[in-house]
């Protein structure tokens, strides 16, 4: 008993203090900007700042719990956890009481949560287990198949909810972990190729160039001619069918897909948000307009300003200087974590760290990319900074998982 306590105390003693400092710097910036974004809001939103403080508290507790979990248990129950996760994300399709028009939320008593959030954990854990325990050779294509199937099931379900953003994140988790595990790059290429083919199919020249690239890469890597032909022809077929299908679907569906990739096509909806967000960010300049002085923020030209577009609020009020600091903080943290993974002697721990870090990395990229108009508006929040309990808990949980992985 005494021994167990001392292990836990030891575990906390050796925690990576830099990670903790960075996280709390981000939390500080978060609370300041949520305060600013909600200060002039109508009464219904005005206590969001207080709520977020409570969520931070809950997040810390979650962090401590996840950090303290015995990794052996995770390894042992990975499959069970994964199956429960899949069941949870299917659940919204059957509960008629789902609150949104989309099937993302489950209401259990007074708690309302987005089940897909937790799928991230479960996917990381089961993939980590696979990469740790598999006997299949890295140099065989078979090595890719089990994790691909494991990942595609939740990705498909989440995509159907429909939640494009989360399904992309799940895809990134799979891709990141697969890549780090040391799989042949050629296999990753084979997975990505059909997606590139679909996009290339819209432009003849691009499609021809892509065809040549495809042929060269496949020829260089594929030992037997039959599989070379199979893979190549398969891709070309996809490319030929794509424009055909595109022409068959209705114009409004085309529009919706186009808007997904380019919000500017819809200036009254998402496009409007991005335009205003860019104005907010740009108008901040180098030094920012000053705390609580963001006109874009306070005149509510920014939609979702304390959730998905919090980065715009920060950029407007604090300017490039603080934006640079935030990016540096994220970069340093992710760099440290990846390094921890590769230095770790335990593969399961390493894979947990890689999965968790990749999740957060792509959240940062997708969110900021969206606010500056680089990426479509998918509604992914910024880790540790955006308002919202569900996601903040995910972030703390992932940090707990990562640092847990780093501990002995």
């Amino acid at each position, binding site marked *: 008993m005494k021994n167990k306590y001392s292990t836990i105390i030891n575990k906390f003693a050796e925690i990576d203090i830099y990670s903790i400092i960075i996280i709390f710097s981000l939390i500080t910036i978060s609370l300041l900007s949520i305060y600013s974004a909600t200060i002039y809001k109508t009464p219904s939103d005005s206590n969001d700042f207080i709520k977020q403080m409570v969520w931070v508290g809950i997040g810390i507790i979650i962090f401590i719990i996840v950090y303290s979990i015995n990794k052996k248990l995770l390894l042992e129950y990975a499959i069970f956890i994964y199956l429960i996760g899949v069941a949870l994300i299917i659940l919204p399709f059957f509960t008629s009481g789902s609150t949104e028009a989309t099937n993302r939320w489950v209401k259990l008593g007074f708690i309302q949560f987005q089940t897909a959030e937790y799928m991230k954990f479960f996917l990381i854990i089961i993939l980590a287990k696979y990469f740790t325990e598999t006997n299949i050779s890295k140099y065989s294509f078979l090595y890719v198949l089990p994790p691909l199937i494991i990942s595609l099931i939740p990705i498909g379900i989440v995509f159907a909810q429909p939640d494009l953003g989360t399904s992309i994140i799940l895809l990134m988790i799979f891709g990141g972990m697969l890549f780090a595990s040391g799989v042949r790059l050629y296999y990753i290429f084979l997975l990505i190729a059909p997606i590139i083919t679909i996009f290339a199919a819209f432009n003849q020249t691009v499609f021809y160039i892509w065809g040549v690239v495809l042929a060269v890469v496949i020829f260089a890597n594929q030992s037997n001619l039959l599989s070379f032909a199979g893979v190549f022809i398969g891709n070309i077929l996809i490319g030929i069918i794509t424009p055909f299908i595109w022409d068959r679907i209705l114009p409004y569906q085309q529009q919706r897909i186009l808007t997904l990739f380019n919000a500017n096509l819809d200036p009254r909806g998402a496009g409007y948000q991005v335009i205003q967000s860019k*104005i907010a960010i740009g108008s901040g300049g180098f030094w920012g307009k000053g705390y609580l002085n963001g006109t874009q923020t306070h005149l509510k030209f920014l939609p979702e300003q304390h959730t998905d577009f919090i980065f715009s609020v920060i950029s407007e009020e604090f300017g490039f200087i603080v934006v640079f600091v935030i990016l540096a903080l994220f970069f340093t943290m992710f760099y440290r974590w990846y390094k921890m993974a590769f230095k770790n002697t335990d593969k399961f721990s390493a894979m947990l760290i890689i999965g968790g870090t990749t999740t957060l*990395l792509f959240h940062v990229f997708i969110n900021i990319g969206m606010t500056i108009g680089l990426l479509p508006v998918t509604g992914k929040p910024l880790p540790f900074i955006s308002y919202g309990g569900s996601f903040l808990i995910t972030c703390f949980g992932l940090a707990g998982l990562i640092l847990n992985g780093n501990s002995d």
Partner: protein
Amino acid sequence: MHSQNDLDSNRFVIIVITMIILFSILLIKIYDLQIVKYYDLYSKSIENIYRKIDILAPRGKILDRYNRVILYNNSSYNLVVYPAEIHEYPETWNKLSQYFQVPVSKFKNTMNKNMVGYYFPALLKENIDYQTLTYLYEHILELQGIDLVAKPVRKIKKGANVAHIIGYTNQIGKKDLKVKKNKKYKAGDIVGWKGIEKEYEDILRGQNGTKYMKINAVGQNIGEEYSKRIEPIPGNDLILTIDWDLQSYVESLIKDTSGAAIVINYLNGEILSLASMPDFNPEIFSTNLSDKKWKDIVYNPKYPLYNRAIQAEYPPGSVYKLVAVITSQEEDVISPYFTFNCPGYYRFGRRIFHCWDRSGHGSENIYDAIEHSCNVYFYNLMLKLDFDKWVKYSKILGFGQPTDIDLPNEKIGNVPDREYMKKTYGRWGKGYLLNFVIGQGDILVTPIQLARYVSIIASNGFDIQPHLVKAIYYHKKNELEKKKYPKEKIESISEHSMNVVREGMRRVMQGEEGTGRHSNVENLDIHGKTGTAQNPHGKDHAWFIGFSEKPSFPYAIVVFVENGEGGSKTAAPIAKKIYKYYWNLHNNEK
């Protein structure tokens, strides 16, 4: 936890490089926005602090020749809501719903229908009455999210409709919007749709101003930023050639007929009155026109929107005989005193052409023939004329072409020439010409063309451009600019021919047997010609053209009455009344 970590450190390097690339992409784009595009985006964010609101520029006024305002602006108020703001204050909906007794859902539907953007006003209710307006202004602080926008409405001086002169204004049509976009028109803008309002759109239309309302953090207006205000420039005023009193009189005179009447100064082309019946009240177009009212106008079988004065194309009947007179004199075909016998009919080959008076006019020279409007004389004359010459003088006298009156959509009628005949009839014989010479068949003219024609005759060969706008008052320059119109002597028509025609026309009115003698007005030296256009579909159409040769009273009149049966029966008496009225008015005004 004893699984061996076999991760390849090269992969770590690639991951870090990927991270560097991803973060660099973000940083470069942020740098681009915050540093490179800073000024541009900063000024955009400043613009966002203000809510830009158009201040509608009043359209120019329209005055009559004695500077009496006949068309002016009045304000009507619209209730608008700001979707973004009212969203934050749902209780405003309830208050509005309670006051107007309209369910909230209906109001919201209206707003959604009229919404152009979340931060732009959406129209909720048009033409708020005075009582409601006062109420809303008193409670405006409790009704967050609403605003009242004044909208100028066109009003007409009481007494006449002047519908076919002024036309009307309405919201710009979608097609026009595409064409006029480069002229800074936007959806919902008011433009002239017909008449002077359309023809002088660019002059009448003002330039909208802009006011910048500062808005606070919750989106409420907190007052105007006066330093940024751009004042609207009102549209310029037009001074017409119309005499309001005469116009009112003429309109009332022909109100119950279908037809048109024009009073023109034949020396300079100024139109003193131009009326076309039936008409409409142009005011109703600038208010919220109900569907029923709109249908009443558009589907009225008598077409009130159709300006008969410039658009009615009908055969002119006997008034066209004068073209043959002029041709015969110019081409030296016949002496004015040469006579033809009229037995009441004319045999042309196997066909019989009747004179309107079947008992016959006996021996007639050209003056008699005009006075009695003898068809047989003109049948004889026409056969002596070269058809091409007759066509030539028709065109010189303005037929088959626009008069260029300053009104849109003028029709040009038709002068049948050889080419036309060939195209329409293939093989044709001279029999057609016997119809043409007395103004029947394929000849089509508009009342305004006849006004030009009679002016040429009255002025002894001066071609004028009939017009309605005398001068333009430019607000910006504070300057009155008189409009200039062409007036040319027609060289190819001699004074002799004109004298012959005028003497004939004098005898029509003042001769003992003149067809218009009952409509003569003493002391005004009235000259005239009546005409009756055969109408196979109903009663004949009646025409009258005439002028006073009194130097102090240089006015010509054209009257057209649809289904008026005969020129001397219905058209000439109207002209007589107009002359009488205007002569009295003229003397009083002096």
